[in-house]
């Protein structure tokens, strides 16, 4: 298929996505169309990150690959993060080629990548509207992408991520169960370091009643202890 026609066809499918599942299904087709086997969307790692699994948003990588990668702590040796953090351009590389942006994979990482057929890859740094950084990457055993293919795939990835991000921002947010004014008051005093007894004295109630208010609040906010209750109440801006 002529490049522009292919790009238009894939973009049309991505544009018609109504859910994350649709976007991922379209991206799987994109991967196949470009001769890759896997597509992955992950949060961009920070220097402190040591595990891959928590970063992954969606991926067709096998669970065994991710587990082994993390078990061997290969994130610390991954040479990709600095490259992707330092540029906004899509990149393509192969562990079996010399033209690799000076990426150097250690033997253990290279062995794992070969075993799971993650030999050639293309990755695109992406930014969500709310300012978070992500990476979309395609992996397989094909030859490294030519510049024209990389340009095309980069535009498709940008389009797909835009749709994905828009869907993410419009996801319905769970409604917050409401606490009564008295429950809020008790949670607020707890957050300020007061014990049940002290709150009881302040509100002229027994500590038994205070504990009942707190237990109700814990149940309503689906918490397991007072620490979670206080933290959640602050996070949901129920108390200042």
């Amino acid at each position: 298929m002529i490049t522009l026609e292919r790009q238009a066809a894939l973009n049309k499918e991505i544009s018609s996505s109504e859910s994350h599942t649709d976007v991922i299904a379209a991206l799987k087709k994109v991967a196949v169309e470009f001769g890759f086997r896997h597509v992955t969307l992950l949060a961009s790692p920070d220097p402190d990150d040591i595990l891959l699994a928590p970063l992954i948003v969606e991926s067709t990588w096998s669970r065994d690959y991710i587990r082994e990668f993390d078990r061997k702590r290969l994130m610390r040796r991954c040479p990709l993060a600095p490259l992707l953090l330092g540029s906004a351009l899509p990149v393509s590389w192969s562990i079996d080629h010399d033209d690799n942006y000076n990426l150097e994979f250690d033997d253990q990482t290279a062995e794992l990548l070969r075993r799971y057929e993650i030999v050639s890859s293309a990755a695109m740094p992406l930014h969500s509207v709310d300012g978070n950084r992500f990476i979309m990457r395609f992996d397989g055993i094909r030859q490294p992408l030519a510049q024209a293919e990389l340009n095309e795939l980069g535009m498709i990835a940008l389009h797909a991520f835009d749709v994905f991000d828009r869907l993410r921002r419009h996801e319905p947010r769970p409604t917050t169960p409401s606490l009564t004014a008295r429950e809020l008051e008790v949670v607020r005093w707890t957050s300020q370091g007061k014990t049940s007894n002290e709150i009881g004295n302040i509100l002229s109630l027994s500590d038994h009643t205070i504990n009942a208010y707190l237990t109700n609040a814990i149940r309503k906010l689906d918490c397991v202890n007072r620490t979670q209750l206080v933290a959640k109440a602050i996070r949901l801006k129920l108390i200042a």
Partner: protein
Amino acid sequence: MPFWVEQEHRDNNQHRAIGISDAEVIGMVTAFRLFGSWRLDLDSGHIFGSADFSDLFGIEHSEGPLDLAAVSAQIHPDDLGFIMSTFERASVDKRAYHSIYRVGAEGETYRFMRSVGMFRDKPGTSGEVIGITYEFFPRRSGTAFVAADEQWPLGSPGPNTEK
């Protein structure tokens, strides 16, 4: 970017193998910066902090439970949600975590803090989360191992000249 990372528990006794004690490590780690430590009691929801912890957040220090509302008021509004989410996860999942976030009163330049916390069993209770907090990019600070009158005040640009 994930703001906190679960990690497997790691016993690090490497310093002992070369003849350095736990106390000496703590002394050096805490020497040139404010280094807060804190404890969250899961059953009561109360947080207890060291004097350095109160200093880091610019709140009034108390030997008893600290005012979590006052602590949270010092955290950058954009970071408060995930910090509280981290507390929630730490109190439920009973794992170790770390997070980096911005702290500062209105009108100040925000400072980056790093907190590391871990669950600790406390028999007869739901347990505790204990942790440390320090400035991620510490301001230029004093000479910790010299006499008090020769020290640079923490966070100051140079020696204390006010005698």
